[in-house]
């Protein structure tokens, strides 16, 4: 094994030194990666060595397949390992995601690092501990049941002698099958799980030592920029080059055009020269096909031919509607919204005739490897993808597009290329959270019991071919296959309530006739909740019941009730019917409540807002959010996630909207795509409903839908008017108040 390991080090080291990343990567975290990095992954998930290594200095490395996106999972997953291994946090480290090194745990989607990744890390650690104890038992000549461990030191209870983990295996492999069968610790023995352990990435993030993707440089590289029309067009049509005048950038030193079909870029030794060349290159694009503009898109969506699917059906809704004393119908429109990462995506690629190394900020290194292989015409095992955290992505922003584009630029230029998207590339060519038309009908009986509910939703799904691939390989746009998050959600559309008669219908539009779509934090959920929670709230209003109490009456699941109560309690909710204090004052205030989820967890929110009836300006003053995500490993992280969700939900409810004309997107910077800033930021009040005995589930998205509903309902409470479209811009608010 020794020789093999030396070979690993040699070949792994050679590969990276050949690419000369020294000084770019922090030495400590790369030591293990190099040893393992010689062969294409994924490493065998059925081997303990794939998941962790114990070192001679009594520390351990945990190999995690989930990306740190700013949510803190790189700390929380180590807490789980630390408890199972009886190690201290300071004894544990993890390594960069790398398709030659880290296991394939699936992409970092659905806020599921802890939900899906936690159990694997926990059981692998438990199994490693069992193996270590077996070795210790032999070494110390003591039965297993007399051994105890603290900080990686095994001692004999009531006896003498001890041995360190590091002395038992010291950097040697376990060579053990991972059977997923070792017993894990009972909750009562947790020391770190459930505690707000400080984040491990924070110190470097505040001092400038953290290496973001945007910092990665390699020797002999060129800087690249893509050249595209400003603002994407209809997805299916891509963009067609008519003419390129290469003489237009001749004055820029070293700059040159690289092109593959309609994929056009520039490269130059100096970054500023690449930026200038991309801006100055004279290029004529074919006229794009006509689109409905932002004002008429909803009407077109509603009337278009769609692929319809009933995604929920219970009882007989028509009969129930017929006899109900209280009925309401809410029709709402939700806009296209952008991930809009604060720092545009970036990638560095070195593509040779038969290999590629691509460093990027993907949420899924193995998924990106597959798509890169396709785009570059290489076998997947010839492509190595390494993850570097970028600016927060909140879903499928341009990280795949930029990785593909960097790969293409490097392949075409014959040199390593660093590509940083410009602000307009990122906003203009994003995979937007799709626009939505929602129609809800709901009915309650005289006792305030919901008896019938119907949700019909119109939207398109996600795009499956990125722009770089589309342009370079002349590929048509295509639909992302499957995916519950692309459909009317049975969880968010009535799912939390006990409703005997219900029908949910999904009307799917073809993405190729609209804009690129993708998962954006809590996909479609804000629109669902904006529609559904307003309908539920309106039933409460019609029945003359306090909206919190109305929800309590209609929810049976104790976990939904738990978060609802937690949010109401945090807000000091006092019973009152909605819109009881509507006045003609210039500034009116309101409070609203809402529940919502994304996939598995439970979210509730209360909003306290202020509406200026003369200017139409709406301000959230306080947002309260509660999440039940089962066992919360790091409540500090989850509180931060709730706070972030509340602010981002408010941003999406008040400002965010992709604008477009009849040919292309026109939201290209922070003045044409407005987001929350300091001046109007609400105070946030996060509540973690801890349930250590329940399975962990996601905590990064669930409170957004709840907050969207709560804000809309607070607006009704303040004004007596239901908003039919978000964001609640002053113009839209004034129009709604006027027409009421």
């Amino acid at each position, binding site marked *: 094994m020794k020789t093999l390991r030396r070979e690993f080090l040699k070949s792994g080291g050679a590969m990276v030194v050949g690419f000369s990343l020294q000084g770019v990567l922090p030495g400590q975290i790369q030591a293990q990666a190099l040893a393992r990095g010689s062969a294409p992954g994924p490493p065998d998930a059925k081997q303990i060595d794939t998941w962790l290594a114990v070192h001679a200095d009594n520390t351990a490395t945990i190999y995690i397949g989930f990306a740190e996106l700013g949510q803190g999972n790189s700390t929380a997953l180590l807490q789980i390992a630390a408890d199972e291994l009886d190690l201290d946090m300071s004894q544990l480290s993890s390594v960069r995601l790398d398709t030659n090194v880290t296991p394939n745990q699936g992409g970092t989607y659905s806020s599921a690092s802890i939900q899906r990744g936690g159990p694997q890390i926990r059981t692998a650690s438990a199994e490693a501990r069992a193996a270590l104890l077996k070795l210790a038992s032999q070494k110390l000549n003591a039965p297993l049941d007399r051994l105890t461990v603290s900080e990686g030191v095994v001692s004999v209870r009531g006896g003498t002698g001890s041995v360190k983990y590091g002395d038992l295996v010291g950097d040697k492999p376990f060579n053990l099958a991972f059977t997923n069968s070792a017993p894990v610790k009972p909750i009562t023995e947790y020391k770190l799980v459930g505690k707000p352990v400080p984040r491990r990435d924070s110190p470097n993030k505040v001092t400038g030592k953290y290496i973001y993707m945007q910092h990665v440089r390699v020797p002999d590289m060129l800087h690249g920029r893509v050249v595209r029309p400003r603002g994407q067009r209809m997805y299916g049509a891509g963009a067609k080059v008519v003419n390129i005048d290469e003489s237009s950038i001749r004055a820029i030193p070293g700059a040159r055009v690289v092109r593959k079909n309609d994929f056009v870029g520039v490269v130059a030794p100096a970054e500023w020269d690449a930026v200038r060349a991309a801006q100055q290159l004279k290029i004529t694009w074919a006229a794009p096909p006509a689109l409905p503009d932002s004002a008429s898109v909803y009407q077109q969506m509603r009337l278009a031919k769609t692929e319809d699917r009933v995604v929920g059906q219970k009882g007989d809704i028509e009969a129930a509607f017929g006899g109900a004393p209280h009925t309401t119908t809410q029709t709402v429109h939700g806009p296209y919204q952008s991930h809009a990462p604060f720092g545009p995506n970036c990638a560095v690629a070195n593509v040779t005739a038969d290999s590629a190394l691509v460093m990027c900020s993907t949420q899924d290194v193995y998924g990106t490897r597959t798509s890169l292989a396709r785009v570059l015409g290489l076998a997947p095992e010839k492509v190595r993808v390494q993850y570097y955290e970028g600016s927060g992505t909140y879903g499928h922003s341009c990280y795949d597009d930029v990785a593909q584009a960097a790969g293409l630029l490097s392949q075409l230029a014959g040199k390593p290329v660093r590509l940083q998207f410009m602000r307009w590339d990122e906003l203009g060519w994003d995979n937007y959270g799709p626009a939505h038309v929602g129609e809800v009908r709901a009915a309650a009986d005289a006792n305030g019991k919901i008896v019938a509910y119907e949700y019909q939703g119109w939207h398109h799904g996600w795009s499956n071919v990125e722009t770089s691939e589309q342009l370079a390989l002349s590929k048509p746009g295509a639909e992302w296959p499957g995916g519950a998050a692309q459909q009317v959600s049975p969880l968010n559309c009535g799912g939390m309530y006990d409703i005997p008669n219900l029908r949910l219908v999904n009307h799917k539009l073809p993405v190729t006739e609209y804009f690129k779509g993708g998962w954006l934090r809590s996909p479609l959920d804000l629109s669902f909740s904006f529609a559904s929670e307003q309908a539920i709230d309106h039933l409460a209003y019609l029945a003359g019941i306090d909206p919190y109490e109305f929800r309590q009456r209609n929810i049976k699941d104790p976990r939904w009730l738990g978060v609802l109560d937690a949010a109401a309690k945090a807000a000091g909710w006092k019973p009152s019917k909605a819109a009881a204090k509507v006045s003609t004052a210039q500034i009116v205030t309101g409070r609203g409540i809402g529940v919502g989820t994304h996939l598995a967890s439970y979210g509730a929110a209360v909003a306290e807002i202020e509406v200026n009836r003369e200017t139409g300006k709406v301000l959230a003053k306080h947002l309260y959010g509660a999440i039940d995500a089962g066992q919360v490993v790091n409540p500090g992280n989850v509180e931060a996630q709730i706070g972030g969700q509340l602010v981002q939900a408010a941003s999406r409810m008040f400002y965010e909207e992709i604008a477009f004309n009849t040919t292309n997107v026109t939201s290209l*910077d922070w003045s044409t795509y407005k987001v929350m800033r300091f001046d109007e930021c609400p105070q946030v009040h996060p509540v973690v409903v801890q349930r250590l005995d329940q399975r962990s589930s996601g905590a990064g998205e669930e409170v957004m839908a709840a907050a969207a509903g709560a804000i809309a309902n607070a607006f009704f409470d303040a004004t007596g008017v239901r908003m039919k479209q978000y964001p609640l811009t002053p113009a839209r608010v004034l129009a709604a108040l006027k027409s009421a």
Partner: protein
Amino acid sequence: MALTITVNERQRTITSAPDTPLLYVLSNELELQGPRFGCGLAQCGSCSVLVNGVETRSCVTPVSAVSRKSVTTLEGLPAWYAAQKKLPQAPAMHPVQQAMLDEQAAQCGYCYNGMIVKASELLSKNASPTDAQIRTAMNGHICRCGTYPRIIHAVQRASRVMAGAAR
């Protein structure tokens, strides 16, 4: 002719063209990791540095414009603070950095260069800003993760710490 600029108290000779935005010089020639690209339009604050103590967007500032001025980046803030406060040596972190850590404010942390630079500038001019003053001063800086509330708390905390240190 090569240009000389002073960055974090060190004189540096620059080979980039004089019209190159300072950001690209700091990132590529001087390999500093504080200032970073966000929009290139002076709309977001990602690239902020201090120029003679004044927060400046390096993405739209030609490097030639700072040739006779003192540029301080995130990396140089502890020493800049020590010089202001006449401390015998630079602390490991500027109190604003320490406060951001203490508040566990950062999520992705990408905007924290600008946040910390701007907050440090603010506290150098106004030792105990109100909530409204903090919001106004910081309004040119976007945090897409939505950590504004914790940043405000951190600035208040740093303000208290600095007041204590001055006593």
